[in-house]
């Protein structure tokens, strides 16, 4: 057999074909949050349906909760949080709510609890569920109607996608992180370039990443339109599976969770690792990025009137001048957090830059560890002290926070944020807010200089 990893995962989870051309696939594990699940539960109630297998679901509070306190910051968010708790109690579903020592951002909590292993199929009402591909598991985001479908049937209606392999070969330079690798992929493939595809990441630059880095890569694969992202399981995966609450309880055997050597993909993309520099986004789509050493594009670089118009719209929204250098972009806020980059590994990288330095005058700097367990670990390692000594605000509660600003961490109109998050859309961090995506270390570098800065300049300083 010459099958891709993706096809193996689909084949092993296929329940049956349906007459209209879809198939039913089995969902091994389903995660819920407080904002995309309420209408799914009310859908069950209105149809008089039960949850098919309650123990295969986990619900966490992460999107709307305040991160300054374990108390909801307003009545509306409290309603969502309480509603999820009540639904879980009613249906016998595990619920890691505010104050629970296991609470945090769903895609940080799940690996931390040992709830993802190679060969699983995981669904969640959140687009960044592609994260689990880092473990050789098939994870993908679903809408609320599909959340209802999983709750009621433990399956989804599914159509097999085309496959794309993105190979990143060659050693990346010091200062280039997993975030820069995936931002480069988004830049090359384009924001919708992988619509309809399941993407497998391969090549020595990917294999060389730890699982945290692989999660960052797979997490942001949805920003190129990939509905699924995968990295073959290997010894690094195996090592990362040990030592968690659920470790050893699940083993999805029966296949090698990697593509066969002769497997053929519908599309191949190759990127040289040596070509990747630390990147920043300048626009309002994740594919609008340039190396930190470069300039914001100019309209005359482009021929197509449509592309020119899009460029001008993005520059206007972002308050930038065409051709200005990336390093000349001054920031108001630095944010480290989100399911993309709030793991312990991310906090360590940022702390390396912050140690012995101060956040620039006038910059508000916030760090929100991805989970309660991540926060406690970071505090034990002394990372909190480093962040606070530098002038970062260390948030005591975990959540998505300013990544999508559904809680009270909202950037103001015109506020410019250096952000370790995943989306620089118009209005994402607040109406009129201007987001620049980059790695956590680059956010730290921007925080201390007051403008976008090259992390590699810092490394040189500390080494001399």
């Amino acid at each position, binding site marked *: 057999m010459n099958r891709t990893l993706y096809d193996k995962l689909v084949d092993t989870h296929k329940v049956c074909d349906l007459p*209209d051309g879809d198939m039913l696939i089995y969902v091994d594990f389903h995660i819920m949050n407080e904002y995309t699940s309420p209408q799914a539960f009310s859908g069950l109630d209105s149809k008089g349906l039960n949850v098919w297998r309650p123990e295969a679901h986990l619900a966490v509070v992460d999107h709307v909760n305040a991160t300054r306190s374990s108390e909801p910051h307003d009545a509306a968010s409290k309603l969502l949080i309480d509603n999820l708790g009540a639904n879980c109690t009613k249906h016998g579903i595990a619920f890691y709510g505010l104050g629970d020592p296991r609470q945090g951002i769903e895609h940080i909590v799940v690996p931390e609890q040992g709830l993802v292993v190679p060969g699983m199929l995981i669904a969640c009402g959140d*687009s960044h569920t592609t994260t689990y591909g880092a473990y050789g598991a098939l994870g993908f985001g679903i809408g609320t109607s599909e959340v209802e479908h999983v709750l009621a049937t433990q399956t989804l209606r599914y159509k097999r996608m085309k496959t794309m392999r993105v190979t990143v070969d060659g050693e990346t330079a010091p200062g280039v992180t997993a975030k820069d690798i995936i931002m480069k992929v988004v830049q090359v493939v384009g924001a919708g370039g992988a619509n309809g595809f399941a993407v497998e990441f391969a090549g020595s630059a990917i294999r060389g990443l730890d699982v945290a880095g692989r999660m960052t890569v797979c997490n942001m694969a949805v920003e190129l339109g990939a*509905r699924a992202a995968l990295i073959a399981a290997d010894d690094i995966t195996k090592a990362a599976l040990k030592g968690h609450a659920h470790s050893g309880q699940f083993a999805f055997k029966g296949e090698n969770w990697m593509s066969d050597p002769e497997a053929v993909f519908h599309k191949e993309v190759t990127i040289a690792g040596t070509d990747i520099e630390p990147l920043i986004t300048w626009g309002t789509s994740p594919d609008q990025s340039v190396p930190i050493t470069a300039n914001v594009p100019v309209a005359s670089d482009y021929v197509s009137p449509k592309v020119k118009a899009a460029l001008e719209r993005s520059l206007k929204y972002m308050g930038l001048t065409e051709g200005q250098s990336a390093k000349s972009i001054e920031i108001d806020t630095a944010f480290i957090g989100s399911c993309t980059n709030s793991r312990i590994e991310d906090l360590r990288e940022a702390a390396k830059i912050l140690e012995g330095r101060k956040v620039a005058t006038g910059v508000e700097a916030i760090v929100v560890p991805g989970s309660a367990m991540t926060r406690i670990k970071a505090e034990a390692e002394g990372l909190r002290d480093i962040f606070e000594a530098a002038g970062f605000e260390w948030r005591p509660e975990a959540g998505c926070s300013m990544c999508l600003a559904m809680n009270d961490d909202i950037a103001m109109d015109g506020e410019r944020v250096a952000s370790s998050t995943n989306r620089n859309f118009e209005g994402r961090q607040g109406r009129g807010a201007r987001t620049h995506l980059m790695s956590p270390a680059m956010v730290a570098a921007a925080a201390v200089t007051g403008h976008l800065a090259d992390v590699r300049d810092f490394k040189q300083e500390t080494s001399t």
Partner: protein
Amino acid sequence: MNKTIKGIAAPLPLTNVDTDVIMPKRFLITITREGLADGTFADLRFESSGQIQPDFVLNKAPWTQANILIVGDNFGCGSSREHAVWGMRQLGIDACIGTGFAGIFYDNARKNGLALPIVSTDTRDRLLQFANNSNGAEVTIDLAARKITTGEISASFEMDDATQTALIRGRDDTLDSLEYADAIHAFEANLDDKMRVSVRK
């Protein structure tokens, strides 16, 4: 859902219109599906002050009456929020014609009777031009024949069979799938214990 959607088409040629733009987060703090029409495209339709933004296409005649959008590439990208589709339906949108849609948005649309015919770039651009210049002439989307007709344009579109069937029949996927309960039980019976996740409470 009828087999044919007819109405006025509004041009919305922006690329990469994401679901944050379709339904800004401040409208998501809700436990129901209702009340989302005002939130739909809110930051495009309204100024920060709440005043109507007169330059936005859906605020201009004849497109205030539009029930079809001709959209830019990669419409519906980003967040999985189904609220975006619920809001569009509540605003009276029955179809978006484009060159390609983000996957989760596409599936959400199907669940809510929002048709997303996929056409070539050339056809989309001709439809954009027509929508701009036709003073509200009717566009017809024949779901069964997978055909769009208006003025001098007659073009076929792509739509997978399952989505086409779902849109024409307007069925409830959850109840339909439960008719396969025996197959699901049989699949589960073949799993060994190590392949059954049980989350600690």
